[in-house]
């Protein structure tokens, strides 16, 4: 994992003291809310429905046990005993007091954490593959590159006041586990003729105008990557719409001028930028890369006792192969039946930290699907991990099944929301609680947003739900056919919306139809793509 050097630490420490002064001035009446709001947002502090909310960055979703324990500590000392892991691999605390915030940030800084780049019209926290460094299918570990982008983007003087927020994802495997094509810039590290480089995708995003990104460069050498990204951002910064917040994202710019014209301008800008010498020297890249060196993984492969059916199901559902024989990748589901997707209590966070320290080379990952990963586990330790998770209520064996639901906080917490997401998720998970039934349905990614801003990724759900406000009453639109993976697609609305209970019934009719018409080996998404919307509409609306 990356460790701060003196510059990183001094920058974060200075930022804490700067914000402490800003908070004091706000409380003393020396600043109005209009003056203070952009400053608090630059430090991850929102004002939500019930209180201030602090969003803490987890760069590229990677953290160690010491950092995880700090999150538990913040939850206990400053919040109400829990945190909410988000679809951008961060964590949010929902009940923060303004006066406590500088102290919280100071405590976070002691473990190399902060809330920078979690709000505002800047380059946000870089997201990545939660299996980075462990996946068998990756060409390289994407995290050193994500870290390089973090250093490049943090406090970047040109890109601190972009037309709108800007999200970048970096992956290095053909399987897209990070919804890369639905980011403002998606980077897929790849090799060509033995040389490391990247495919660059630009203009993806969800929100009120969902778009899949365009491939802007099929290969840029790794030693040109930073300059190329600088050029991509410069063209956006120059021409992105600042007159209309709803048209300010880069996806709209590409839509308006066309991908070919955008590419032409980026290539032209790239020539100018390259001459500036932005790309880091090899020694700096080596310094960063060395901190992501694979941990010593020496365990031998073992044959596990699968006689306990619950353990066997968990192995099949939540454990994935590691690139190192004898090891495995464990995903801890934060999708308990009837629970709140992404929420974890301080005690549960501590347990996960303990497991990481003891069994996973001291590493954890946060996934965009709001789960937690132990990336480097010896196969022989899987029974002990499962036992510990079972005792903590975290052994739900539902990864990628219908109850592994992404849900935004919705109207229960969020000031922007129009409808509640969490109760819908709870009712669906409860309706499909039987694990045998879920496994019969197979991979089925269900995603719920409480408003068109799409924090719950409903456009990318095999089944998506969008909550809307219809004359003061919650109403839920149903979408089918989305995907955030390498087979990326945007879901389509089935038709008129439903009440909260009605949408649960509609989903059951959809899954029943799927079981009726699917062919051997087809996932729900495959069947939908083969038969189209009509059979499902007929099943839903009659």
């Amino acid at each position, binding site marked *: 994992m990356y460790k701060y050097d003196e510059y990183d630490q001094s920058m974060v420490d200075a930022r804490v003291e700067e914000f402490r002064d800003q908070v004091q001035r706000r409380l003393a009446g020396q600043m109005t809310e209009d003056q203070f709001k952009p400053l608090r947002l630059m430090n991850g502090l929102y004002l939500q429905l019930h209180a201030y909310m602090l969003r803490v960055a987890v760069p590229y979703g990677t953290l160690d046990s010491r950092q995880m324990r700090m999150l538990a500590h913040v939850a206990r000392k400053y919040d109400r005993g829990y945190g909410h892991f988000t679809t951008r691999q961060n964590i949010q605390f929902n*009940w923060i007091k303004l006066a406590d915030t500088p102290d919280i940030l100071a405590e976070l800084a002691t473990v190399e954490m902060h809330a920078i780049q979690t709000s505002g019209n800047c380059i946000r926290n870089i997201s990545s593959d939660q299996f980075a460094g462990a996946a068998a299918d990756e060409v390289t570990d994407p995290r050193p590159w994500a870290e390089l982008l973090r250093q490049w983007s943090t406090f970047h003087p040109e890109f601190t006041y972009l037309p709108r927020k800007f999200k970048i994802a970096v992956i290095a495997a053909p399987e897209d586990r990070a919804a890369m094509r639905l980011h403002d810039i998606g980077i897929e590290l790849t090799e060509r003729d033995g040389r490391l480089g990247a495919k660059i995708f630009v203009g993806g995003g969800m929100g009120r105008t969902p778009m899949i990104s365009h491939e802007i460069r099929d290969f840029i050498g790794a030693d040109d990557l930073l300059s190329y990204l600088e050029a991509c951002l410069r063209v956006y910064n120059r021409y992105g719409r600042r007159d209309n917040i709803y048209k300010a994202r880069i996806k709209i710019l590409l839509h308006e001028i066309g991908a070919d014209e955008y590419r032409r301008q980026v290539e032209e800008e790239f020539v100018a930028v390259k001459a500036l010498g932005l790309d880091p020297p090899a020694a700096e890249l080596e310094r960063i890369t060395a901190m992501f060196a694979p941990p010593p993984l020496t365990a031998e492969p073992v044959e596990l006792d699968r006689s306990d059916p619950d353990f066997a199901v968990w192995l099949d559902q939540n454990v994935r192969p590691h690139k190192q024989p004898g090891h495995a990748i464990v995903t801890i589901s934060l999708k308990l039946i009837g629970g709140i997707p992404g929420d974890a209590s301080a005690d549960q966070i501590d347990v996960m930290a303990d497991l990481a320290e003891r069994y996973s080379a001291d590493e954890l990952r946060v996934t965009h699907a709001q789960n937690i990963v132990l990336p480097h586990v010896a196969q022989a330790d899987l029974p002990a991990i499962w036992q510990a998770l079972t005792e903590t209520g975290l052994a739900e064996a539902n990864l990628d099944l219908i109850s592994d639901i992404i849900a935004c906080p919705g109207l*229960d917490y969020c000031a922007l929301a129009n409808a509640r997401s969490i109760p819908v998720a709870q009712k669906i998970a409860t309706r499909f609680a039987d694990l045998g039934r879920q496994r019969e349905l197979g991979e089925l990614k269900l995603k719920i947003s409480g408003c068109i801003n799409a924090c719950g990724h409903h456009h990318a759900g095999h089944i998506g739900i969008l909550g809307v406000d219809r004359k003061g009453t919650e109403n839920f639109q149903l979408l089918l056919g989305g995907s955030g993976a390498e087979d990326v697609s945007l879901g389509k609305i089935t038709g008129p919306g439903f009440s909260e209970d009605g949408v649960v019934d509609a989903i059951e009719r959809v899954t029943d139809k799927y079981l009726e018409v699917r062919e051997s080996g087809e996932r729900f998404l495959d069947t939908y793509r083969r038969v189209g919307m009509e059979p499902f509409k007929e099943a839903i609306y009659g």
Partner: protein
Amino acid sequence: MKLLTGNDLVTGDVIWWTGSGWSRHVEEAGDVGDQGEPIALAEEGARRVNGPVIIDATMTPDGPRPAHIKDRIRALGPTVRPDLTLKPADPNAGSWVI
């Protein structure tokens, strides 16, 4: 009726104008009529409230109830965590919210 609400500047708590001060309990809120804006301006200037807004509500035997679901959820707390609402011990406390 019209209610004046906002968040406590320091704690972030949802608060309601009672006619003479602020309360965390919507039951204690008072009708501000057409005086909401000057009260909001004065209270915001005194840093006793953050983000004040005037909302529609109806008076019931149990006190004022905001007209919109968002404000009703603000008034009590998250519907999915009764233990974190203002009345965690009352299982029926949220019956009027949804």
